């Protein structure tokens, strides 16, 4: 039987949704429209200064900027590290906390701690941990006799982005552990037991039963990882500010610097528009892909 909604109900529904709609449009829709609008102007951030319409010039400058390619490469490294480092580590951690161990709660808490600390505090903490002049990692290397190792991981262009990526992995592994843990809990125990009766070993059970049934958790992880990598900012900003030189630049730092260091708000909004657009496209594509693989 089809549900009939009369006019009064419809008005009520609109009325009840209004506070949420208001809030949503004020904090999200309006700023997004402004970002796109301002990306077509040249403006120095001073209200009295006229905004000059420049069409697609900001996008042209951004896409032809050498730093765009550096940021793109670094975002690629972030995404790759997500799948190669965060995914296996968090899945492993999730399996550990699934075991009936007396230390289960301790593990769970320890793994999740980075998630409750502010990102800025984490970045600062690691900045000092990796400080090459007397920092704990430098001291450890010295203790182990690794005197030939250049311990300035954040200060060298060839290692800076990888150091940040590892800090990022440390930060997000606990959160993703929870996602996979929820997925593992939802797998019926009977399936594993049936597989064991059929003679499957642990490896076979994991790859043939557990992993395929974790698809939904993996989808959430993949979406978070890719969108998070595209929009990453605070970890890079605090540890290297995109340096040394431009070596660890990401889109977030390009956006920030163009607005607050270069007074180039139009360009900065073009970067912002690119971020919004690419995040949206990636979410749509991934959702479609996940739906397809479901079938």
């Amino acid at each position, binding site marked *: 039987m089809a549900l009939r909604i009369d006019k009064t109900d419809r008005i009520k529904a609109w009325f009840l949704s209004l506070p949420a709609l208001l809030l949503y449009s004020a904090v999200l829709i309006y700023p997004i429209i402004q970002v796109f609008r301002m990306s077509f102007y*040249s403006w120095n951030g*001073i*209200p*009295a200064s006229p905004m000059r319409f420049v069409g697609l010039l900001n996008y042209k400058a951004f896409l032809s900027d050498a730093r765009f390619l550096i940021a793109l490469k670094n975002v690629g490294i972030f995404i790759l590290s997500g799948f190669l480092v965060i995914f296996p580590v968090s899945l492993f951690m999730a399996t550990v906390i699934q075991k009936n161990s007396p230390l289960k709660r301790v593990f769970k808490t320890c793994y999740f701690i980075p998630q409750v600390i502010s990102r800025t505090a984490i970045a600062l903490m690691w900045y000092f941990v990796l400080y090459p*002049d007397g920092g704990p990692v430098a001291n450890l290397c010295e203790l182990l006799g690794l005197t030939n190792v250049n311990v300035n991981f954040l*200060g*060298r*262009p060839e290692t800076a982005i990888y150091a940040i990526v590892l800090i990022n992995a440390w930060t997000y592994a606990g959160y993703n552990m929870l996602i996979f843990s929820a997925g593992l809990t939802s797998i019926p125990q009977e399936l594993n037991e049936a597989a064991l009766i059929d003679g499957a070993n642990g490896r076979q059970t994991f790859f043939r039963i557990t992993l395929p049934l974790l698809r939904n958790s993996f989808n959430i992880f993949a979406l978070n990882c890719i969108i998070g990598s595209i929009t990453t900012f605070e970890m890079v900003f605090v540890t290297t500010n995109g340096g*040394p030189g431009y070596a660890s630049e990401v889109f977030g730092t390009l956006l920030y610097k163009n607005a607050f260091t270069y007074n180039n708000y139009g360009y900065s909004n073009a970067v912002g528009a690119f971020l919004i657009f690419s995040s949206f496209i990636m979410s749509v594509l991934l959702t479609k892909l996940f739906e397809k693989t479901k079938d």
Partner: protein
Amino acid sequence: MKRNIVLAVVCMLLISMMPIMASGNEENTASDGKTVVRILTRFSNPGNPREKYFQDMVAKFNEENPDIDLQDLSISDEGSRDTRFKTSIASGDPIEVFNFLGYAANLDYVRDGVVTDISGEMEADPEWVAAYKDNLFGPVRYDEFGISGIYGMPIDPYGVCCFYNKAIFDELGIPLPETWEEIEAATPALLAAGYTPMAFGAMENYRGGHFYTALSMKAYGSEFKDALISGEEKWNGEKAVNLISYMKHLYDIGVFGENNMAYNADGELSRLENKQAAIIFTGSWNLAAVNAFSNADDLVCMGFPYFESVPEHKDDWMGGPDCFISISSKPGDPDYEATLRVLKYFTSYEYLKGQYEYCNGSGTYPVTFDETIPADRLTNEFNSYYSNATDMIGEIEQYDAMASLIDIVRTNLQTIFTGAEPQAIGDAIQLEVDTWRSMNNY
């Protein structure tokens, strides 16, 4: 259905714009009726005598002026300070009193009315400015751009200088090197003894920018700066790249030591105090801090090294007026009178004299004091060089109307310490300059 969706979107947009449309300029009045005035400087480190003095004076001002709530938003990190300042401007609520660097790089703030012309107030109150040295107002005058007036009060004229740890040189039997040729000659012995010849904290990119300008003055004089700004010289031209090459040469032969990307200007100071560095390149703003070092007796203040082969530029300096205090409130604004009172308080002869006494005569000041305090040895040494300066400029990029140039040059120069090639550095800077000029029809 479609009509409903369109209606919903239109409603959302209109309603979300309402608070923005309704917002307007409000008077800065605290709930207790006091006029709120915010002040933003880079004086936030109580470990530095002159910054501690500033903080004490903010507290004193609030005590003496019960009708004003002076809120100190100062933050020592340059980038954070800039972000705070620019955000306040972009949001339409500019901080009332702030430190301002002047020069062409900040022309937009003057042209677009953020910074207030205070020449009328200076004329109306001649006593306020009587002790100021006239030649310090150049960077806050914009007559060459068709803008009349004065847009700030100088508080901190400076000169770059070097501090040498004489004890190290005495220990090794090396006379204090005054030229780059002598520093290069002394480097092997200093390195062999385990000392960094000249600590260079490249982690903060401004260090490279300062060094480049100071070096350019010793190599070419201020004509080079003029040629770069006019476009006659290019950042990737022979002269400009030669300077970068020389910086890289100094780095390659070990003059700057190792791990430069691992420490900043404070790291340079600590290396000097800990007897790890034989020389540091800094400025007169650190005279009071260095004076307080445990090994101050071992230290000597000298000018930035020059080239034996270019003696004609021996006394050309990077320095001059740099830090100004400016205001954004305009005559007629409800908080103008309070803002002006704050400006006058922190740029008054009494304030500066108090700072002079608090720092025991250390440092450089924009006013001439009627009574001088016998200054410390380091300040006297600095002044003996400073007074011989024949030409002086601020950082080259400050003279360019391209506001982003300063960070672009500094960031690219920083890559010397990460292995970049001098020509590539020059090319990268010039590309940015060309792009900006073409976009701005310059």
